[in-house]
């Protein structure tokens, strides 16, 4: 099996009439990486994937696979295999015929195909199920057959379009692990599309976060989660408390923000915004629920608020707070058995570490 083929998107624009579905995408995917495109529904993820697989030509820019320009090559001529959002198994073919369809196309004998199908069925832990029809399989099994069918073509790059979205939560979590294992075993480049940040963060070496045709940030899970490049990324990936205001002072990579309702607060400037913020700029500061601590700190990292509600979730609990002027804040704590239980209406002071907060120029948030 071939492995480790780079995929590069150079200044890709994709337009449908006047509508720009993808804007200036520049992405370098290392060979053998598990790369995810993460973004809300309709942001252009499938469109990018179709440009990589050859089902549509970008209006501008180049797709390079293994350093080779793919312009003018159809999907059948590219070393890619696509797994469709709805899997698109052939319902009237048996499982083994589905899996080895690419070999049938290249003229392999039935014996060869049968043998290869059995190998792949073993790999996806469905031994002896080759003679069933897809309709006789469960959702997770169909999923695995679709993967086997794509791998049978021995692609250099596997493209997956939200392949887990039809599965229930439990199975989805199980399949995440399994997909990651398969990817590491075959060692080829995976390009994975999802709107589920949990999926993207757990499986990927690298994630591109997309918003309405624009790639806001590319980085590993930590970079995207801990140092979001834009307000959209900060609010789309995971949960975040946002504080709006104006920059009142800048000191190296730290800034003080005069927030609209919570006084002056101190925050690290997110790496992407270092050098781009000036005093007086509109800014947004983000603090994750889990970095808030129920203890007073320095004046510029402490906020006071009223307890609205507490939700107990077993391993953790969330506290919903209302600050000055009705500012809603969420706090999350692990359940360590020493729940400093607060009654509704209690006034509390809590703080955070300035290095755990990020500030950046104001911008659009992900809508719920």
């Amino acid at each position, binding site marked *: 099996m071939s492995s480790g083929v780079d995929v590069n998107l150079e200044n890709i624009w994709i337009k449908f009439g006047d509508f720009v579905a993808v804007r200036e995408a520049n992405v370098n995917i290392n060979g053998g990486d598990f790369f995810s495109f993460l973004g809300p529904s309709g942001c252009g993820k499938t469109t990018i994937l179709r440009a990589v*697989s050859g*089902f549509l030509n970008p209006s501008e820019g180049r797709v390079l696979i293994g350093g080779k320009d793919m312009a003018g090559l159809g999907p059948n001529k590219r070393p890619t295999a*696509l797994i469709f959002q*709805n899997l698109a198994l*052939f319902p009237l073919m048996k499982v083994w015929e589905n899996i080895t369809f690419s070999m049938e196309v290249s003229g392999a004998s039935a014996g060869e195909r049968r043998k290869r199908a059995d190998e792949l069925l073993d790999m996806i832990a469905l031994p002896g199920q080759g003679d069933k029809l897809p309709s006789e399989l469960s959702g997770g099994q169909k999923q695995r057959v679709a993967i086997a069918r794509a791998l049978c073509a021995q692609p250099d790059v596997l493209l997956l379009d939200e392949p887990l979205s039809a599965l229930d939560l439990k199975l989805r979590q199980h399949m995440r692990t399994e997909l990651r294992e398969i990817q590491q075993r075959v060692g080829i480049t995976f390009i994975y599309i999802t709107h589920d940040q949990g999926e993207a963060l757990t499986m990927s070496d690298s994630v591109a976060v997309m918003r309405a045709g624009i790639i806001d940030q590319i980085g590993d899970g930590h970079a995207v989660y801990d140092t979001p490049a834009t307000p959209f990324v900060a609010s789309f990936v995971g949960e975040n408390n946002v504080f709006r205001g104006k920059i009142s002072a800048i000191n190296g990579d730290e800034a003080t923000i005069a927030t609209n309702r919570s006084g002056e607060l101190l925050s690290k400037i997110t790496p992407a915004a270092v050098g781009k913020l000036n005093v007086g700029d509109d800014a947004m500061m983000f603090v994750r629920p889990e970095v808030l601590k129920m203890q007073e700190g320095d004046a510029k990292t402490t906020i006071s608020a009223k307890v609205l509600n507490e939700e107990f979730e077993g391993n953790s609990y969330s506290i919903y707070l209302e600050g000055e002027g009705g500012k809603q804040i969420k706090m999350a704590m692990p359940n360590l058995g020493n729940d400093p239980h607060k009654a509704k209406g209690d006034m509390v002071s809590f703080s955070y570490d300035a290095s755990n907060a990020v500030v950046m120029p104001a911008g659009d948030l992900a809508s719920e």
Partner: protein
Amino acid sequence: MKKDKLFAEFFRNNGVVLGSILFFLVAFWIVFLILLPQISMLNYSLHPNPINLDAGEFADDYTLKNYKYLIFGPEGASDAFNKVDLMVFVRTIIAAMAVTVMNLFLCYPLAYFLGQSKGTGFVRLLVVMLIVPYWINEILRAFALRIIFGDVGVINGLMMQMGLIDQPYDFINADIALYAGLGYAYILLMLFPMYNVIESLDRNQIEAARDMGASWIRIHRRVVIPHAKPGIASGMTMVFMLSAGALAAPQVLGGTSSLWFTQLVYQWFNDTLNWQQGAAYAIVLLIASIAIVLTFMKIFKVNMGDIGK
């Protein structure tokens, strides 16, 4: 599900009153529109006409004479078989098959185009344009074709003007007008069932096959046609049955030397006023057509149940 349960379910779902009405209508349909006419036909076909009084025959005797006549001809005739009528029969069946296959090849690409273009405004307009001519009576349509294909018709006119021919070509006697007329008469019954099934085919399956390198021929052979099979079968069944049983087109568009089997039936009923003999001919045509359809369904592994889909 067991039959009595099925009944109980039916009445529970529809209520006793509506259930009874529906049940009555279906029963009425089956008995009065399907069973009784066919049984009376069959009954007719088994009675003698003319009645051979000398041999002690009565009008309500049962006999296979009418069927024998179709196969062996009148008693004492010089030929061992009723060559003329049998030839007409065979020719009708073969021609109906040819019309069916011709329609299949014409409609498949069209159905594929319509079915996969996902109902845009233009496609819907196209479908309406296909239906509009069928608001006109079948016989009038046949006459329209006769005019088009006639000696001084549009086609001969055009061909002569272009210098392709200098004498009008006799499309009528060459049966070209007949095949065109029969094909045209039932083409929508081929198109729509195919269009419906192809429309329900997930486009991603075609793209998946393409992604794996399949040629267009293979995509159709392995993905589209297997999916469309029930629609193709139901279209072919209808076109074959109706072509074999057509009367208007052969009457209007048929050449002088070639008869359609239904024209023989019509002559027995209408000209000779021998309903018994006509009924026998009609029954033979019906049974032969059904047998042919069932045989082909068996060969191509189509289930009866799929056709109704």
